[in-house]
């Protein structure tokens, strides 16, 4: 087999060699010459034709611009896409310098998660966020936001959001959309916004106590903008019940939410939105851990939220002057057991409710300057006898906080803020907090959510 192959290739090689030897004869060279000559003629003719055409086009163009005194634009058919990069990439850098007068900042009467504690004292960078997002195709949109945070002395990556959202191309009824994955779910005003877009350097007491800053569980949610004559939207979802205020999920727990909201304009320069939300779920297996795992809640909790936002641009132009009023009210009912291992309470039955609210106003008095005031307050539940003296004992004191801030926005992409908080979370303890913050955004142009 091998021998015959070798013989065949040897024959081919000799044939080729023979040909090249023959090609050297004068006859062949003449043939090649004439061929090249022919090709040259053909190309020269083509070039001449093209030149003639070009002159014609130039003449035409001159004629049209002469016939019209003014500049007439030419139609452009170039399609311009929103994203010059796919996916669009955005970076958020933010940092604070904080000074606190009080050594501690627990909120007695509530089990507070790690994110619900006040920020770090001294100079510290906040969550540095990276966002990648793009329309996957005509049917889906994908977005991923991760935050790099410092926890227990090392920098770790936290996945804030990673979701897929249906696009209108999917063919669902107009106004209906689905979202799956991990996201800052629709629950009141602040929860679905990233903290760097907030009007204050920290979140109000309601979000610290009830949501550990924000609820971003894994799940599936839907929303539907109703075809009414004014804005109205309903929605809801099911979640893993892994994130605060629920237990660490083993996949058997579930949580669900539902909401409805309406909104509209008042005249040309005012708008508003009002919403009602419910988030309900179990903390059954490991329970809701708080106060550095010392406090554990096992059972069911229902969280009801209402929010109202009102925006007024006195001159019509929000760039210039703007007044924003915003409030959220939280009411939580819990049925289960609490245990505070720090104070060795043992397991104590708990079936009660608590509530809280914040009210804030922000006034943009010049294109780059804004000032704001915020008041937040919590109304803890009555303490059962078994929990007296524990972290869950509010001693009949309502935690409250006042905040005043002023910020300067150089462009849509940079903001510097000063804030002073006056917090009374415990009877006889006042925490005076001074904060300086910068928020920088690099990359994709963010959208202005309502």
């Amino acid at each position, binding site marked *: 087999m091998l021998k015959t192959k070798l013989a065949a290739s040897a024959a081919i090689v000799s044939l080729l060699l023979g040909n090249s030897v023959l090609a050297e004869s004068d006859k062949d060279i003449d043939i090649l010459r004439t061929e090249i000559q022919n090709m040259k003629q053909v190309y020269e003719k083509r070039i001449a034709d093209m030149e003639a055409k070009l002159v014609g086009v130039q003449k035409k163009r001159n004629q049209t611009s002469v016939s019209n*005194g*003014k*500049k*007439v*634009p*030419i*139609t*452009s*058919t*170039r*399609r*311009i*896409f*929103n994203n*010059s990069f796919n996916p669009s990439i955005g970076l958020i850098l933010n940092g604070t310098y904080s000074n606190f007068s009080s050594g501690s900042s627990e909120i007695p009467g509530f089990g507070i998660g790690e994110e619900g504690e006040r920020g770090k004292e001294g100079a510290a960078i906040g969550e540095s966020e990276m966002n990648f997002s793009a329309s996957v195709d*005509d049917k889906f*949109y994908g977005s991923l936001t991760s935050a790099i945070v410092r926890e227990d002395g090392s920098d770790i990556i936290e996945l804030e959001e990673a979701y897929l*959202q249906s*696009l*209108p*191309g*999917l063919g669902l009824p*107009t*106004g209906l*959309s689905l979202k799956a994955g991990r996201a800052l779910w629709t629950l009141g005003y602040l929860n679905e916004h990233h903290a760097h877009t907030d009007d204050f350097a920290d979140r109000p007491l309601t979000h610290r106590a009830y949501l550990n800053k924000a609820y971003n569980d894994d799940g599936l949610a839907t929303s539907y*903008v*109703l*075809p*009414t*004559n*004014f*804005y*109205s939207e309903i929605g809801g979802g099911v979640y893993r019940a892994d994130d605060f205020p629920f237990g660490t999920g083993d996949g058997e727990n579930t949580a669900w939410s539902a909401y409805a909201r309406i*909104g*509209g*304009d008042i005249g*040309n320069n005012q*708008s*508003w*939105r009002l919403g009602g939300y419910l988030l309900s779920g179990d903390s059954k297996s490991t329970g809701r851990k708080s106060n550095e795992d010392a406090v554990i809640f096992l059972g069911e909790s229902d969280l009801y939220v209402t929010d109202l936002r009102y*925006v007024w*641009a006195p*001159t*019509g*132009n*929000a*760039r*210039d002057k703007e007044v924003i009023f915003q409030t959220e009210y939280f009411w939580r009912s819990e049925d289960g057991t609490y245990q505070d291992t720090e104070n060795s309470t043992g397991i104590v039955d708990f079936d009660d409710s608590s509530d809280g609210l914040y009210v804030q106003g922000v006034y943009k008095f010049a*294109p*780059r300057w804004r000032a704001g005031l915020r008041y937040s307050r919590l109304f803890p539940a009555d303490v059962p006898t078994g929990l007296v003296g524990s972290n869950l004992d509010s001693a009949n004191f309502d935690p409250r906080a006042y905040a005043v801030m002023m910020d300067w926005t*150089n*462009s*849509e*992409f940079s903001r510097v803020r000063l804030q002073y908080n006056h917090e009374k979370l415990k009877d006889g303890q006042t925490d005076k907090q001074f904060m300086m913050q910068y928020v920088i955004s690099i990359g994709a*142009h*963010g*959208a*202005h*959510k*309502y």
Partner: protein
Amino acid sequence: MRLFKIILIGLFCVTSNVAHSMVNIFACEPEWEALAKEIGGGKVKTFSATHAMQNPHYIRARPSLINKAVKADIIFCSGAGLEVGWLPLLLQKASGSVQPGTEGYLMASDFVKVLEKTMVADRTMGDVHPEGNPHVHLNPHNIFLVAKELTKRLELIDATNKSFYRSRFNSFTLRWRESINQWEKNSSDLKGMQVVVHHKTFSYLIDWLELIEVASLEIKPGIPATASHLEGLLQQFKTKSPDAIIRTPFDPGNSSIWLSEKINSPAIVLPYTINGDASSVDLFALFENSINLLKGAMND
């Protein structure tokens, strides 16, 4: 639960009756709403997301806009990044037939020659978009090109009224061409007029009338004027003052007025869009008034 269902069904009944005898046009800016009315007449229902006192780059996706966008058959905007801060949020909720690439998605800047396209857009240059200057409507020739495209789209979306749109377009074209001729004749003495602008909102008008933009009050697009920048302008105009300082109704007036008093050039507010002043009620009046205001300032 039952009550909830009844309410839902009720809502559908109320709304489905109103919808769909007319083409719903969601315009991002008043100029496009005006053009939609010119071509669509009584067969379209128009809405403008912004009004003349608003800077269309800086509005929010407020609830009422979401409601209107969901019902839109055509979304008609300037494009080129002008609405980048809010339109994408609305499009996510809107119907499949107004998404980019479809007949219901009409961005004016896709159909005209866009000025000031930059190859490199660095944020140190201010809020510059590489797509170019989006304020395309202030050249009347662009209005014509966009009208032509809008007519095409209306004919596709509402085929039963095809001849209606065509005849309105023809009538508009006739009147518009005539007006353009008139304006171009009337404004020949404006050629070479030196203007200071507040922001690059008038580039197309300047280009069309062949004015000369000598300075901008904003340091860079989107970055407001500072005292030192204004001081610099004062030095620049020491020897020769510009003919006018122009701004839109939504630009803050203080720096214009300050400079005007110092260098003795008139500071004027051009209507910029429909209802930008009391008499600019349609596209014809908008250009008419803009030219007259410039001429007034020139002869001042």
